[in-house]
């Protein structure tokens, strides 16, 4: 249906959850899966490519309400692909709680068509000041490809990693994106970023403390519909800062990732237009 359904291995996760053949090219998902946490209506403002008549598989109810008020229909709440991964992989990367340590830090990232501008060295210095334990900086594959950005964090003594390319339906690049992220999050005690985003909620859902601090940086094509950093601050004032209430973060993460909207495999198969894999 749309390429974004397959980013970050989302379609593979659903394929596994639904018992559809894994490994090969998955059938099309007949609809549009929300591919990242979003505080508009689950999709970018210019979402004309979401053809009317096909469902929009979104993560949380607030997105449905906002989307409805903005003239969007056909919402279907299934929660984030992440919750299906957690359902399938309760033990993946899990280590004893007392052995979890350090912070995994996700600097806000751009994408292929728009990049992010900001001072990474200054941000690294700020991280160094705040964090007391070992720090892993996880860069998006685009920023990871930039040696200067990598160096800014490496020179601060941080471990610099990337979960890799987000992939597509036709290559195997993004298939293990979320699995890799889950392993990393389960070995860290804390997850932080300079903007509230998917990674923080993923982390909070697996027991990490969260923190949002540092220069939020400037996105090249920042859309006014989102309302900017001020709106994020107004909507989630308690989630910003170097120390955030663990329980609150966990509750918000469960709500934003739509844990209570998890659908069953048969329901998803029907909705996606998939057939069940034949048993050998």
């Amino acid at each position, binding site marked *: 249906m749309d390429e974004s359904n397959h980013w970050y291995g989302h379609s593979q996760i659903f394929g596994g959850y639904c018992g559809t053949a894994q490994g090969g090219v998955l059938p099309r998902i007949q609809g549009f899966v929300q591919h990242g946490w979003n505080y508009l209506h689950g999709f970018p403002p210019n979402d004309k490519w979401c053809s009317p008549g096909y469902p929009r598989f979104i993560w949380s*109810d*607030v997105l*449905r*309400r*906002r989307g*409805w*008020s*903005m*003239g969007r*229909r056909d919402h279907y709440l299934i929660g984030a692909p992440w919750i299906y991964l957690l359902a399938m992989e309760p033990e993946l990367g899990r280590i004893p709680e007392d052995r979890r340590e350090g912070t995994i830090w996700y600097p806000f990232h751009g994408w292929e068509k728009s990049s992010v501008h900001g001072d990474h060295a200054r941000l690294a210095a700020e991280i160094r000041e705040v964090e007391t334990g070992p720090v892993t900086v996880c860069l998006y594959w685009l920023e990871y490809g930039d040696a200067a950005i990598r160096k800014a964090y490496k020179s601060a003594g941080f471990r610099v990693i990337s979960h890799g390319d987000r992939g597509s339906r036709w290559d195997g690049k993004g298939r293990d994106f979320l699995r890799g992220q889950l392993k990393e999050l389960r070995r860290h005690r804390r997850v932080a970023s300079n903007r509230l985003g998917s990674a923080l909620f993923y982390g909070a859902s697996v027991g990490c403390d969260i923190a949002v601090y540092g220069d939020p940086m400037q996105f090249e094509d920042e859309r*006014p*519909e989102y*309302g*900017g950093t*001020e*709106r994020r601050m*107004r*909507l989630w004032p308690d989630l910003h800062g170097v120390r955030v209430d663990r329980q609150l973060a966990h509750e918000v993460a469960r709500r934003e990732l739509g844990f209570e909207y998890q659908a069953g495999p048969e329901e998803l198969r029907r909705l996606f237009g998939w057939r069940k894999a034949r048993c050998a």
Partner: protein
Amino acid sequence: MRVNTTPDNVQLIGGEMLLWSDLTQARDWGAIATELAALFVTERGRVLVVGPHPEGLFDMVAARAGSLSALLRSYPDACALATRHPSARVFCGRLDVLAQAEPYDLVLAFDGFAALHSAESPVQSWRESLAALSALIADGGRLILGVENDLGVDRFVSARPAGREGDDSQWTPHGYDVTYPNSPETVERELQALNLSTETCYASFPTREAPRALLATHVLAQRPPDALTVPLSARGYDARMIVADPLHLTRTAFRHELADRLAPLWVSVARKEPSAPSHTILPTGLLQSGPIVHEVIYGGTGWSRSALSAPPVTGRVRMVAADASATIPHGRVLEEILLEGCARDDLRALRDTFTELGAWVKAQTPSIAVFGTTDNLVWDGVRLRLAESGWTLDDAPIVEVVLCRILWRFAVRLLAAGHHHPWPWPIEADQLALTLAGMCGIPCDKEHLESAMRLEEEIDTVIEPGRTPPAYRELLEARDHLHQCLSSSQARVTRLETKLTFRERDLQKTKAKLRKVRRKALACRRTLGYRLSLRFARPRRLARRVLRKFSS
């Protein structure tokens, strides 16, 4: 939507909707909401207006009150209001997060709570919303609260199921909130539970989208006269598909003393206890007619109304101050009397009534008589009286045109609604109007009728813009009527066909007879006797001719 352009007097409190405006869907209150609110606005009073309200109301409060605060969920609307009233304090967001240290003397929520919920959070129940609002009212302060009636008369009128339009404002469906009140008494109980004692509850008509009248529910049991209920119905449906005649349905609701239960909207005026004795006398009702708001008065002398403002002098069709205050007449609406006469085929009663109408039109000044339509005239048992008076028309036309307008309007409504009537069925509205004019004793012709139609359009544009479309039930009636007409036509055609067949058969017989006679005559001429008789006859004819010549 850059939030950094926010005016200084706008405070974002959470739940603000950046890409949203309530202005296009706001209730059209005309001037009655402003008039009612004005009774309670004091020089030192702190006023909070929650949700979208008419601009005139904000202007009035800003001009008269000690301070104006407003709560709007829409960010663009909040900015627009804040710019228009720089001294006002505008809170942008949702009701449940508005915490105010200083309570208000007057809280205006004419539109209820529907436009106070934000898409940013789950919708609160009606009871929770009322509790949140109640917390903002000072002791002795007032609340004016509008509550839509899910069983309002307009719900019966509308063909489309209510609340299922699926527009952008319905991200949460209406109708499933168990705390939502179902009667004025329930509203009163809910208010009482929060220490708010109801001073008066008003039933609002004719529609929830555009209320034009507020009548205190406690006086509705006194059987308001038909002349008052006429302006409370039949308007505001121009663009909607309807199933029943709103005029008929509303008047029936009043007659059955269900007007308070079936009002499209209730407006409660409540006061928070403990409160000092109030000197404000609440009106029995407010009624907007054209640009003027009238106060409806009910007392020992009956029902009357009094204009609260002088009418603006503009246009050819306008209101005049002289007739702006008047007693509201008792009696039956003329249209009902005529429809009853039609239904009973009572031509004697119809002739009498039309004669009265003709006499009334002749006796009145044409500039006033022209507004005496059959649904605006009341028969009080002695004479006809205007139900809604006060209108005048400059350069009024002659009596014939005035009468034609009244009769043509009635004829169109009678035929469109498929009512039974005693006149021959193929008759059209034009012919019927001219026939009725004859019954009134004022013969009219086509030219009068054409002028009347032009006049009707001109007056309607001012008084009743957007004519009420035919209702589905009436269309069914009209269809049945047309079906009868068609059956009658078919019977007529069949009868004529039979007659034609007989006539053709007679013609054939006659033709055959004629042919037979002709053949007989020809055969006769060929006989010997005939020819001999001709021969013998010739000399005799010659002799007669000669004799005539000589004799002359």
